[in-house]
Protein backbone atom coordinates (compact mmCIF):
# COMPACT_ATOMS: atom_id res chain seq x y z
CA UNK A 1 0.00 0.00 0.00
CA UNK A 2 2.80 2.41 0.75
CA UNK A 3 4.77 1.53 -2.36
CA UNK A 4 4.44 3.23 -5.69
CA UNK A 5 3.46 6.72 -6.65
CA UNK A 6 -0.17 7.67 -6.26
CA UNK A 7 -1.57 9.63 -9.11
CA UNK A 8 -2.84 12.78 -7.46
CA UNK A 9 -6.21 13.11 -9.10
CA UNK A 10 -7.04 16.75 -9.30
CA UNK A 11 -9.04 18.03 -6.41
CA UNK A 12 -9.71 14.61 -4.85
CA UNK A 13 -7.43 15.22 -1.92
CA UNK A 14 -7.75 18.95 -1.67
CA UNK A 15 -9.08 20.53 1.50
CA UNK A 16 -10.95 23.78 1.06
CA UNK A 17 -11.89 25.77 4.14
CA UNK A 18 -14.12 28.70 3.34
CA UNK A 19 -15.41 31.34 5.70
CA UNK A 20 -15.41 28.82 8.53
CA UNK A 21 -16.70 30.23 11.81
CA UNK A 22 -17.43 28.74 15.22
CA UNK A 23 -19.04 30.83 17.89
CA UNK A 24 -19.10 29.41 21.40
CA UNK A 25 -21.11 31.25 24.02
CA UNK A 26 -18.83 34.23 24.40
CA UNK A 27 -15.82 33.20 22.35
CA UNK A 28 -15.42 33.20 18.59
CA UNK A 29 -13.05 30.23 18.43
CA UNK A 30 -12.76 30.31 14.65
CA UNK A 31 -13.47 33.54 12.81
CA UNK A 32 -14.23 33.56 9.08
CA UNK A 33 -11.27 31.31 8.31
CA UNK A 34 -10.39 30.39 4.72
CA UNK A 35 -7.45 28.39 3.37
CA UNK A 36 -6.67 25.46 1.08
CA UNK A 37 -4.49 22.39 1.55
CA UNK A 38 -2.96 20.71 -1.50
CA UNK A 39 -2.24 17.02 -2.19
CA UNK A 40 1.33 15.76 -2.33
CA UNK A 41 2.52 18.17 0.31
CA UNK A 42 2.79 18.30 4.08
CA UNK A 43 0.92 21.33 5.32
CA UNK A 44 1.68 22.63 8.78
CA UNK A 45 -1.29 24.15 10.58
CA UNK A 46 0.26 26.54 13.06
CA UNK A 47 -0.97 28.76 15.80
CA UNK A 48 -0.48 29.49 19.46
CA UNK A 49 -2.42 27.41 21.99
CA UNK A 50 -6.07 28.35 21.85
CA UNK A 51 -5.84 29.74 18.32
CA UNK A 52 -8.66 27.48 17.10
CA UNK A 53 -6.63 24.78 15.38
CA UNK A 54 -8.38 21.84 17.01
CA UNK A 55 -11.83 23.36 16.55
CA UNK A 56 -11.08 23.91 12.86
CA UNK A 57 -9.95 20.32 12.37
CA UNK A 58 -13.00 19.02 14.24
CA UNK A 59 -15.31 21.07 12.05
CA UNK A 60 -13.54 19.67 8.97
CA UNK A 61 -14.28 16.17 10.29
CA UNK A 62 -17.94 16.77 11.16
CA UNK A 63 -17.36 16.38 14.89
CA UNK A 64 -18.19 19.99 15.65
CA UNK A 65 -20.94 21.84 13.81
CA UNK A 66 -19.75 25.15 12.32
CA UNK A 67 -21.68 28.33 13.08
CA UNK A 68 -20.97 29.44 9.53
CA UNK A 69 -18.93 28.66 6.43
CA UNK A 70 -17.84 25.27 5.16
CA UNK A 71 -14.95 22.85 5.04
CA UNK A 72 -14.75 20.28 2.25
CA UNK A 73 -12.54 17.37 1.29
CA UNK A 74 -12.26 16.84 -2.45
CA UNK A 75 -15.35 19.01 -2.80
CA UNK A 76 -17.49 17.04 -0.34
CA UNK A 77 -18.36 17.58 3.29
CA UNK A 78 -16.99 14.84 5.56
CA UNK A 79 -20.50 13.72 6.49
CA UNK A 80 -21.30 13.17 2.79
CA UNK A 81 -18.30 10.96 2.07
CA UNK A 82 -19.15 7.33 1.39
CA UNK A 83 -16.66 5.20 3.31
CA UNK A 84 -14.95 8.19 4.99
CA UNK A 85 -12.07 6.08 6.32
CA UNK A 86 -11.04 5.25 2.76
CA UNK A 87 -10.71 8.96 2.04
CA UNK A 88 -9.55 10.52 5.28
CA UNK A 89 -7.46 9.25 8.18
CA UNK A 90 -7.43 11.35 11.32
CA UNK A 91 -5.36 11.30 14.48
CA UNK A 92 -6.97 13.56 17.06
CA UNK A 93 -6.20 12.40 20.60
CA UNK A 94 -3.41 10.10 21.61
CA UNK A 95 -5.51 8.54 24.32
CA UNK A 96 -8.57 7.62 22.31
CA UNK A 97 -8.87 3.90 22.91
CA UNK A 98 -10.53 1.86 25.63
CA UNK A 99 -7.91 1.21 28.31
CA UNK A 100 -8.89 -2.41 28.75
CA UNK A 101 -8.88 -3.27 25.05
CA UNK A 102 -5.83 -4.58 23.21
CA UNK A 103 -4.31 -2.56 20.39
CA UNK A 104 -5.31 -5.05 17.72
CA UNK A 105 -8.88 -5.30 19.04
CA UNK A 106 -9.17 -1.52 19.02
CA UNK A 107 -8.35 -1.59 15.32
CA UNK A 108 -10.65 -4.56 14.63
CA UNK A 109 -13.59 -2.69 16.12
CA UNK A 110 -12.94 0.11 13.62
CA UNK A 111 -12.49 -2.38 10.75
CA UNK A 112 -15.85 -3.95 11.57
CA UNK A 113 -17.63 -0.60 11.60
CA UNK A 114 -15.96 0.56 8.36
CA UNK A 115 -16.50 -2.73 6.56
CA UNK A 116 -12.77 -3.33 6.17
CA UNK A 117 -11.25 -6.82 6.36
CA UNK A 118 -9.87 -7.45 9.84
CA UNK A 119 -6.40 -8.34 8.49
CA UNK A 120 -5.99 -4.61 7.89
CA UNK A 121 -5.54 -4.29 11.67
CA UNK A 122 -2.41 -6.45 11.56
CA UNK A 123 -1.13 -4.73 8.43
CA UNK A 124 -1.30 -1.21 9.84
CA UNK A 125 0.23 -2.35 13.13
CA UNK A 126 3.22 -3.59 11.12
CA UNK A 127 3.25 -0.33 9.17
CA UNK A 128 3.76 1.73 12.34
CA UNK A 129 6.07 -0.81 13.97
CA UNK A 130 3.63 -1.79 16.71
CA UNK A 131 3.16 -5.51 15.90
CA UNK A 132 5.01 -6.72 19.02
CA UNK A 133 2.53 -4.83 21.24
CA UNK A 134 -0.58 -5.85 19.28
CA UNK A 135 -2.03 -8.02 22.04
CA UNK A 136 -1.11 -5.76 24.91
CA UNK A 137 -3.84 -3.70 26.53
CA UNK A 138 -3.97 -0.02 25.70
CA UNK A 139 -3.38 1.06 29.30
CA UNK A 140 0.09 -0.50 29.12
CA UNK A 141 1.10 1.58 26.10
CA UNK A 142 3.61 4.42 26.33
CA UNK A 143 2.62 7.80 24.93
CA UNK A 144 4.68 7.11 21.82
CA UNK A 145 2.94 3.76 21.30
CA UNK A 146 -0.45 5.41 21.72
CA UNK A 147 0.44 7.92 19.00
CA UNK A 148 1.54 5.09 16.72
CA UNK A 149 -1.72 3.24 17.38
CA UNK A 150 -3.61 6.43 16.48
CA UNK A 151 -1.70 6.65 13.21
CA UNK A 152 -2.31 2.96 12.57
CA UNK A 153 -6.05 3.55 12.99
CA UNK A 154 -5.87 6.48 10.58
CA UNK A 155 -4.14 4.30 7.97
CA UNK A 156 -6.72 1.46 8.10
CA UNK A 157 -8.60 2.65 5.04
CA UNK A 158 -5.41 3.55 3.13
CA UNK A 159 -6.70 7.12 2.85
CA UNK A 160 -5.74 9.78 0.33
CA UNK A 161 -5.69 12.37 3.07
CA UNK A 162 -4.26 12.48 6.58
CA UNK A 163 -5.24 14.93 9.32
CA UNK A 164 -3.18 14.98 12.50
CA UNK A 165 -3.71 17.18 15.55
CA UNK A 166 -0.48 17.81 17.45
CA UNK A 167 0.97 14.38 16.63
CA UNK A 168 4.39 15.22 18.07
CA UNK A 169 2.95 15.85 21.54
CA UNK A 170 4.71 13.68 24.06
CA UNK A 171 6.95 11.93 21.55
CA UNK A 172 10.64 11.45 22.29
CA UNK A 173 13.21 12.66 19.72
CA UNK A 174 13.35 9.21 18.11
CA UNK A 175 9.56 9.13 17.84
CA UNK A 176 9.48 12.59 16.31
CA UNK A 177 12.11 11.61 13.75
CA UNK A 178 10.09 8.51 12.85
CA UNK A 179 6.90 10.55 12.51
CA UNK A 180 8.63 13.10 10.28
CA UNK A 181 9.89 10.39 7.93
CA UNK A 182 6.53 8.65 7.90
CA UNK A 183 4.52 11.77 7.05
CA UNK A 184 6.98 12.95 4.42
CA UNK A 185 6.78 9.50 2.84
CA UNK A 186 2.99 9.73 2.68
CA UNK A 187 3.09 13.16 1.07
CA UNK A 188 5.68 11.88 -1.41
CA UNK A 189 3.18 9.21 -2.46
CA UNK A 190 0.84 12.02 -3.45
CA UNK A 191 -1.32 12.08 -0.35
CA UNK A 192 -2.50 15.20 1.40
CA UNK A 193 -1.07 15.63 4.91
CA UNK A 194 -2.37 18.31 7.26
CA UNK A 195 -0.56 18.53 10.60
CA UNK A 196 -1.39 20.95 13.35
CA UNK A 197 1.31 21.92 15.77
CA UNK A 198 2.67 24.64 17.97
CA UNK A 199 6.17 23.16 17.71
CA UNK A 200 7.69 25.44 15.11
CA UNK A 201 11.17 24.01 14.84
CA UNK A 202 9.55 20.66 14.03
CA UNK A 203 7.34 22.22 11.36
CA UNK A 204 10.32 23.84 9.69
CA UNK A 205 11.79 20.38 9.16
CA UNK A 206 8.52 18.71 8.15
CA UNK A 207 6.18 21.07 6.35
CA UNK A 208 6.15 22.16 2.71
CA UNK A 209 3.35 24.66 3.24
CA UNK A 210 2.16 26.44 6.34
CA UNK A 211 -1.17 27.90 7.39
CA UNK A 212 -0.72 30.21 10.37
CA UNK A 213 -3.70 31.25 12.45
CA UNK A 214 -4.11 33.24 15.63
CA UNK A 215 -7.25 34.11 17.55
CA UNK A 216 -9.27 32.09 15.04
CA UNK A 217 -8.16 34.21 12.09
CA UNK A 218 -5.84 33.44 9.19
CA UNK A 219 -2.50 35.21 9.53
CA UNK A 220 -0.51 33.81 6.61
CA UNK A 221 -0.67 30.90 4.19
CA UNK A 222 1.90 29.65 1.70
CA UNK A 223 5.00 27.56 1.11
CA UNK A 224 7.41 27.65 4.05
CA UNK A 225 10.19 29.39 2.06
CA UNK A 226 7.77 32.03 0.89
CA UNK A 227 6.45 32.78 4.36
CA UNK A 228 10.02 32.91 5.64
CA UNK A 229 11.10 34.95 2.61
CA UNK A 230 8.39 37.51 3.17
CA UNK A 231 10.07 38.27 6.44
CA UNK A 232 13.63 38.11 5.10
CA UNK A 233 13.68 41.66 3.82
CA UNK A 234 15.42 43.75 6.41
CA UNK A 235 17.34 40.65 7.44
CA UNK A 236 20.84 41.38 8.62
CA UNK A 237 24.25 40.06 7.62
CA UNK A 238 26.87 39.07 10.19
CA UNK A 239 30.37 40.14 9.27
CA UNK A 240 33.65 39.49 11.08
CA UNK A 241 36.80 41.24 10.04
CA UNK A 242 40.13 42.24 11.63
CA UNK A 243 39.73 45.74 10.11
CA UNK A 244 36.26 46.86 11.20
CA UNK A 245 36.84 50.60 10.89
CA UNK A 246 37.77 50.44 7.18
CA UNK A 247 34.80 48.19 6.37
CA UNK A 248 32.32 50.31 8.31
CA UNK A 249 33.50 53.38 6.43
CA UNK A 250 33.19 51.58 3.09
CA UNK A 251 29.70 50.33 3.90
CA UNK A 252 28.47 53.70 5.14
CA UNK A 253 29.33 55.08 1.69
CA UNK A 254 26.74 52.62 0.35
CA UNK A 255 24.25 53.95 2.90
CA UNK A 256 24.12 50.66 4.83
CA UNK A 257 23.71 50.78 8.59
CA UNK A 258 26.15 48.92 10.77
CA UNK A 259 25.91 47.91 14.39
CA UNK A 260 28.58 46.17 16.42
CA UNK A 261 27.73 43.52 19.00
CA UNK A 262 29.67 42.69 22.18
CA UNK A 263 32.00 40.25 20.41
CA UNK A 264 32.91 42.85 17.84
CA UNK A 265 30.81 41.22 15.12
CA UNK A 266 29.35 43.70 12.64
CA UNK A 267 25.62 43.41 11.99
CA UNK A 268 24.94 45.02 8.63
CA UNK A 269 21.53 45.94 7.36
CA UNK A 270 20.69 47.70 4.08
CA UNK A 271 23.23 45.72 2.07
CA UNK A 272 23.17 42.03 1.09
CA UNK A 273 26.09 39.64 1.36
CA UNK A 274 27.38 40.05 -2.23
CA UNK A 275 27.37 43.85 -1.89
CA UNK A 276 29.28 43.67 1.38
CA UNK A 277 31.79 41.25 -0.17
CA UNK A 278 32.37 43.58 -3.12
CA UNK A 279 32.76 46.58 -0.82
CA UNK A 280 35.29 44.67 1.27
CA UNK A 281 37.27 43.63 -1.79
CA UNK A 282 37.36 47.17 -3.14
CA UNK A 283 38.56 48.48 0.23
CA UNK A 284 41.07 45.61 0.49
CA UNK A 285 39.52 44.46 3.80
CA UNK A 286 40.03 40.89 4.98
CA UNK A 287 36.78 39.01 5.84
CA UNK A 288 36.51 36.11 8.30
CA UNK A 289 32.77 35.63 8.20
CA UNK A 290 29.94 36.76 5.98
CA UNK A 291 26.61 35.22 7.04
CA UNK A 292 23.12 36.38 6.07
CA UNK A 293 20.83 35.94 9.08
CA UNK A 294 17.84 33.90 7.97
CA UNK A 295 14.77 34.43 10.08
CA UNK A 296 13.56 31.05 11.29
CA UNK A 297 9.95 30.02 11.36
CA UNK A 298 9.78 30.57 15.06
CA UNK A 299 10.71 34.23 14.81
CA UNK A 300 8.38 34.78 11.88
CA UNK A 301 5.64 33.09 13.80
CA UNK A 302 6.16 35.16 16.91
CA UNK A 303 6.20 38.36 14.86
CA UNK A 304 3.11 37.40 12.91
CA UNK A 305 1.07 36.37 15.90
CA UNK A 306 2.38 39.03 18.27
CA UNK A 307 -0.37 40.35 20.47
CA UNK A 308 -2.94 37.91 19.07
CA UNK A 309 -2.08 34.91 21.19
CA UNK A 310 -3.04 34.21 24.73
CA UNK A 311 -6.24 33.67 26.62
CA UNK A 312 -9.44 34.79 25.04
Amino acid at each position, binding site marked *: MSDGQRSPTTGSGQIVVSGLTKQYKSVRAVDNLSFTVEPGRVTGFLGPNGAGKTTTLRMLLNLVTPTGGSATIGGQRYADLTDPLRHVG*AVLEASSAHKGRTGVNHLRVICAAAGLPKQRADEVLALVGLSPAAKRKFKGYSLGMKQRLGIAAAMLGDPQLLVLDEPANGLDPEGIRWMRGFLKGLAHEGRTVLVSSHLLSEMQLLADDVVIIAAGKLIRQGPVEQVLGSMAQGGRVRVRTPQPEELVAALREQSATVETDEQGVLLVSGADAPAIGRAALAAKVELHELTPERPDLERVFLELTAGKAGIR
Partner: protein
Amino acid sequence: MNLVRSELLKIRTTSTWWIFGLITLPLWGLTLLFNWLQTDALASGNLGDVPADQADQIQAVQSADSLAANLYTNGQFFGLLIVMLLGIIVVTSEFFHQTVTTTFLTVPHRTTVMMAKLVAAAVVAMLFWLVTTALNLVFGVLILNSVDVGTQFGSGTIWQAIGLNALAYLLWSVLGVGIGVLIRSQIGATVTGILLYLGGSIGAVAVLAVLASRYGDWINQLQVAVPSLASSLMVTGAEIPGSPPRWAGAAVLIAYAVVAGVIGVLTMRRRDIS
Protein backbone atom coordinates in the same frame (compact mmCIF):
# COMPACT_ATOMS: atom_id res chain seq x y z
CA MET B 1 -25.13 -4.66 10.19
CA ASN B 2 -21.39 -3.95 10.14
CA LEU B 3 -22.00 -1.38 12.82
CA VAL B 4 -23.90 -3.73 15.10
CA ARG B 5 -21.05 -6.23 14.67
CA SER B 6 -18.60 -3.49 15.61
CA GLU B 7 -20.64 -2.51 18.67
CA LEU B 8 -20.87 -6.12 19.81
CA LEU B 9 -17.13 -6.49 19.27
CA LYS B 10 -16.62 -3.45 21.48
CA ILE B 11 -18.55 -5.14 24.26
CA ARG B 12 -16.84 -8.48 23.73
CA THR B 13 -13.29 -7.09 23.74
CA THR B 14 -13.54 -5.53 27.19
CA SER B 15 -14.10 -7.13 30.55
CA THR B 16 -17.39 -5.35 31.28
CA TRP B 17 -19.71 -8.12 30.07
CA TRP B 18 -18.26 -10.96 32.10
CA ILE B 19 -17.84 -8.80 35.19
CA PHE B 20 -21.53 -7.96 34.91
CA GLY B 21 -22.26 -11.62 34.37
CA LEU B 22 -20.33 -12.50 37.51
CA ILE B 23 -22.27 -9.90 39.49
CA THR B 24 -25.58 -11.14 38.12
CA LEU B 25 -25.07 -14.77 39.06
CA PRO B 26 -24.97 -14.46 42.89
CA LEU B 27 -27.82 -11.93 42.78
CA TRP B 28 -29.82 -14.42 40.75
CA GLY B 29 -29.03 -17.09 43.35
CA LEU B 30 -30.17 -14.78 46.13
CA THR B 31 -33.54 -14.06 44.53
CA LEU B 32 -33.98 -17.77 43.79
CA LEU B 33 -33.51 -18.54 47.46
CA PHE B 34 -36.02 -15.87 48.40
CA ASN B 35 -38.55 -17.07 45.83
CA TRP B 36 -38.12 -20.64 46.94
CA LEU B 37 -38.99 -19.73 50.52
CA GLN B 38 -41.90 -17.61 49.35
CA THR B 39 -43.22 -20.34 47.06
CA ASP B 40 -42.94 -22.83 49.84
CA ALA B 41 -44.90 -20.61 52.21
CA LEU B 42 -47.59 -19.73 49.67
CA ALA B 43 -48.03 -23.28 48.43
CA SER B 44 -48.46 -24.66 51.92
CA GLY B 45 -50.90 -21.87 52.71
CA ASN B 46 -48.93 -21.32 55.88
CA LEU B 47 -49.25 -17.54 56.10
CA GLY B 48 -50.77 -17.04 59.52
CA ASP B 49 -53.59 -14.54 59.93
CA VAL B 50 -54.42 -12.68 56.77
CA PRO B 51 -56.45 -9.48 56.96
CA ALA B 52 -59.71 -9.87 55.12
CA ASP B 53 -59.08 -7.03 52.66
CA GLN B 54 -55.88 -8.72 51.39
CA ALA B 55 -57.31 -12.16 51.06
CA ASP B 56 -58.21 -11.69 47.39
CA GLN B 57 -54.70 -10.60 46.49
CA ILE B 58 -53.13 -13.47 48.35
CA GLN B 59 -55.43 -15.85 46.60
CA ALA B 60 -54.32 -14.51 43.24
CA VAL B 61 -50.59 -14.95 43.88
CA GLN B 62 -51.25 -18.31 45.51
CA SER B 63 -52.53 -19.83 42.29
CA ALA B 64 -50.29 -22.43 40.71
CA ASP B 65 -49.83 -20.32 37.54
CA SER B 66 -48.72 -17.37 39.51
CA LEU B 67 -46.26 -19.32 41.61
CA ALA B 68 -44.72 -20.90 38.53
CA ALA B 69 -44.57 -17.62 36.59
CA ASN B 70 -42.85 -15.98 39.51
CA LEU B 71 -40.16 -18.67 39.58
CA TYR B 72 -39.65 -18.73 35.82
CA THR B 73 -39.00 -14.99 35.81
CA ASN B 74 -36.72 -15.22 38.85
CA GLY B 75 -33.71 -12.88 38.91
CA GLN B 76 -35.60 -10.21 37.08
CA PHE B 77 -35.23 -7.54 39.75
CA PHE B 78 -31.44 -7.40 39.54
CA GLY B 79 -31.24 -8.63 35.96
CA LEU B 80 -33.10 -5.60 34.68
CA LEU B 81 -30.82 -3.34 36.69
CA ILE B 82 -27.76 -5.02 35.19
CA VAL B 83 -28.90 -4.75 31.56
CA MET B 84 -29.81 -1.12 32.12
CA LEU B 85 -26.30 -0.45 33.46
CA LEU B 86 -24.86 -2.27 30.43
CA GLY B 87 -26.92 -0.01 28.17
CA ILE B 88 -25.56 3.03 30.01
CA ILE B 89 -21.97 1.84 29.68
CA VAL B 90 -22.32 1.15 25.96
CA VAL B 91 -22.63 4.93 25.55
CA THR B 92 -20.74 6.47 28.47
CA SER B 93 -17.59 4.39 28.02
CA GLU B 94 -17.19 6.04 24.60
CA PHE B 95 -16.96 9.40 26.31
CA PHE B 96 -14.96 8.10 29.24
CA HIS B 97 -12.29 6.65 26.96
CA GLN B 98 -12.71 9.32 24.26
CA THR B 99 -13.39 6.67 21.64
CA VAL B 100 -16.51 8.50 20.50
CA THR B 101 -14.32 10.60 18.20
CA THR B 102 -13.10 7.51 16.37
CA THR B 103 -16.60 6.06 16.28
CA PHE B 104 -18.07 9.13 14.62
CA LEU B 105 -15.11 9.53 12.27
CA THR B 106 -15.67 5.97 11.09
CA VAL B 107 -19.40 6.51 10.62
CA PRO B 108 -20.43 10.17 10.50
CA HIS B 109 -24.13 9.25 10.41
CA ARG B 110 -24.79 9.46 14.09
CA THR B 111 -28.35 8.19 13.96
CA THR B 112 -27.07 4.96 12.43
CA VAL B 113 -24.42 4.66 15.14
CA MET B 114 -26.98 5.16 17.89
CA MET B 115 -29.36 2.63 16.36
CA ALA B 116 -26.49 0.12 16.25
CA LYS B 117 -25.78 0.81 19.92
CA LEU B 118 -29.45 0.27 20.81
CA VAL B 119 -29.50 -3.00 18.89
CA ALA B 120 -26.21 -4.17 20.44
CA ALA B 121 -27.41 -3.34 23.97
CA ALA B 122 -30.66 -5.18 23.24
CA VAL B 123 -28.80 -8.24 21.94
CA VAL B 124 -26.71 -8.41 25.11
CA ALA B 125 -29.85 -7.94 27.21
CA MET B 126 -31.47 -10.86 25.37
CA LEU B 127 -28.44 -13.03 26.12
CA PHE B 128 -28.76 -12.21 29.82
CA TRP B 129 -32.47 -13.05 29.64
CA LEU B 130 -31.79 -16.29 27.78
CA VAL B 131 -29.23 -17.55 30.31
CA THR B 132 -31.34 -16.48 33.29
CA THR B 133 -34.47 -18.09 31.88
CA ALA B 134 -32.66 -21.34 31.09
CA LEU B 135 -31.44 -21.49 34.70
CA ASN B 136 -34.92 -20.61 35.97
CA LEU B 137 -36.54 -23.41 33.98
CA VAL B 138 -34.18 -25.91 35.56
CA PHE B 139 -34.36 -24.68 39.15
CA GLY B 140 -37.98 -23.55 38.96
CA VAL B 141 -39.10 -27.06 38.04
CA LEU B 142 -37.14 -28.50 40.97
CA ILE B 143 -38.75 -26.08 43.41
CA LEU B 144 -42.27 -26.53 42.04
CA ASN B 145 -41.93 -30.29 42.28
CA SER B 146 -40.71 -30.00 45.83
CA VAL B 147 -43.90 -28.16 46.83
CA ASP B 148 -46.12 -30.46 44.75
CA VAL B 149 -47.39 -27.75 42.43
CA GLY B 150 -46.13 -29.20 39.14
CA THR B 151 -44.29 -27.48 36.28
CA GLN B 152 -47.34 -25.70 34.83
CA PHE B 153 -45.74 -25.93 31.36
CA GLY B 154 -49.23 -26.41 29.95
CA SER B 155 -50.36 -23.03 31.23
CA GLY B 156 -50.32 -20.06 28.85
CA THR B 157 -49.75 -17.73 31.76
CA ILE B 158 -46.18 -18.79 32.41
CA TRP B 159 -45.10 -18.51 28.77
CA GLN B 160 -46.71 -15.11 28.66
CA ALA B 161 -44.77 -14.13 31.78
CA ILE B 162 -41.50 -15.39 30.30
CA GLY B 163 -42.15 -13.47 27.08
CA LEU B 164 -43.02 -10.29 28.94
CA ASN B 165 -39.88 -10.77 30.99
CA ALA B 166 -37.88 -10.76 27.74
CA LEU B 167 -39.63 -7.55 26.74
CA ALA B 168 -38.69 -6.02 30.09
CA TYR B 169 -34.99 -6.90 29.60
CA LEU B 170 -35.14 -5.38 26.13
CA LEU B 171 -36.81 -2.17 27.25
CA TRP B 172 -34.51 -1.60 30.22
CA SER B 173 -31.42 -1.92 28.03
CA VAL B 174 -32.91 0.70 25.70
CA LEU B 175 -33.66 2.93 28.69
CA GLY B 176 -30.03 2.51 29.76
CA VAL B 177 -28.73 3.71 26.38
CA GLY B 178 -30.99 6.75 26.62
CA ILE B 179 -29.75 7.60 30.11
CA GLY B 180 -26.14 7.15 28.94
CA VAL B 181 -26.62 9.72 26.20
CA LEU B 182 -28.30 12.24 28.46
CA ILE B 183 -25.70 11.89 31.23
CA ARG B 184 -22.29 11.50 29.65
CA SER B 185 -20.41 11.01 32.90
CA GLN B 186 -19.97 7.30 33.53
CA ILE B 187 -20.40 7.60 37.28
CA GLY B 188 -23.19 10.16 37.04
CA ALA B 189 -25.20 8.03 34.63
CA THR B 190 -24.66 4.84 36.61
CA VAL B 191 -25.73 6.42 39.90
CA THR B 192 -28.76 8.05 38.28
CA GLY B 193 -29.74 4.76 36.70
CA ILE B 194 -29.49 2.86 39.97
CA LEU B 195 -31.43 5.54 41.83
CA LEU B 196 -34.10 5.60 39.16
CA TYR B 197 -34.43 1.84 39.38
CA LEU B 198 -34.18 1.16 43.10
CA GLY B 199 -35.35 4.53 44.34
CA GLY B 200 -38.13 4.33 41.78
CA SER B 201 -39.37 1.13 43.35
CA ILE B 202 -38.98 1.99 46.99
CA GLY B 203 -39.25 5.77 47.05
CA ALA B 204 -42.23 5.99 44.73
CA VAL B 205 -44.17 3.37 46.64
CA ALA B 206 -43.59 5.26 49.88
CA VAL B 207 -44.51 8.63 48.40
CA LEU B 208 -47.59 7.25 46.68
CA ALA B 209 -48.70 5.48 49.86
CA VAL B 210 -48.54 8.74 51.77
CA LEU B 211 -50.42 10.57 49.04
CA ALA B 212 -52.99 7.80 48.81
CA SER B 213 -53.71 7.95 52.51
CA ARG B 214 -54.44 11.65 52.13
CA TYR B 215 -56.18 11.90 48.77
CA GLY B 216 -57.73 8.48 48.35
CA ASP B 217 -56.88 5.11 46.91
CA TRP B 218 -56.92 6.13 43.23
CA ILE B 219 -53.41 7.57 43.73
CA ASN B 220 -52.12 4.03 44.04
CA GLN B 221 -53.02 3.53 40.40
CA LEU B 222 -50.25 6.03 39.58
CA GLN B 223 -47.70 3.39 40.55
CA VAL B 224 -47.85 2.28 36.98
CA ALA B 225 -46.20 5.55 35.90
CA VAL B 226 -42.98 4.65 37.72
CA PRO B 227 -40.77 2.73 35.29
CA SER B 228 -39.56 0.04 37.68
CA LEU B 229 -43.07 -0.56 39.05
CA ALA B 230 -44.51 -0.60 35.56
CA SER B 231 -42.11 -3.35 34.60
CA SER B 232 -42.80 -5.45 37.69
CA LEU B 233 -46.51 -5.02 37.08
CA MET B 234 -46.03 -6.09 33.48
CA VAL B 235 -44.47 -9.42 34.42
CA THR B 236 -46.73 -10.32 37.35
CA GLY B 237 -47.91 -13.87 36.85
CA ALA B 238 -51.59 -13.09 37.08
CA GLU B 239 -53.87 -10.09 37.27
CA ILE B 240 -53.92 -8.98 40.89
CA PRO B 241 -57.11 -7.36 42.12
CA GLY B 242 -56.67 -3.69 42.97
CA SER B 243 -53.66 -3.22 40.67
CA PRO B 244 -53.72 -1.62 37.24
CA PRO B 245 -53.90 -4.10 34.33
CA ARG B 246 -50.66 -5.63 33.07
CA TRP B 247 -50.91 -4.15 29.59
CA ALA B 248 -50.79 -0.71 31.19
CA GLY B 249 -47.41 -1.56 32.72
CA ALA B 250 -46.14 -2.72 29.35
CA ALA B 251 -47.43 0.41 27.62
CA VAL B 252 -45.82 2.71 30.17
CA LEU B 253 -42.46 0.96 29.94
CA ILE B 254 -42.50 0.95 26.14
CA ALA B 255 -43.29 4.66 26.21
CA TYR B 256 -40.36 5.36 28.53
CA ALA B 257 -37.99 3.30 26.35
CA VAL B 258 -39.12 4.99 23.14
CA VAL B 259 -38.83 8.46 24.66
CA ALA B 260 -35.38 7.70 26.09
CA GLY B 261 -34.21 6.21 22.79
CA VAL B 262 -35.53 9.08 20.65
CA ILE B 263 -34.16 11.79 22.95
CA GLY B 264 -30.84 9.93 23.06
CA VAL B 265 -30.54 9.73 19.27
CA LEU B 266 -31.63 13.34 18.70
CA THR B 267 -29.25 14.66 21.37
CA MET B 268 -26.33 12.75 19.89
CA ARG B 269 -27.04 14.08 16.41
CA ARG B 270 -26.55 17.67 17.50
CA ARG B 271 -23.79 17.35 20.02
CA ASP B 272 -20.32 18.81 19.38
CA ILE B 273 -17.64 16.21 20.06
CA SER B 274 -14.59 17.99 21.37
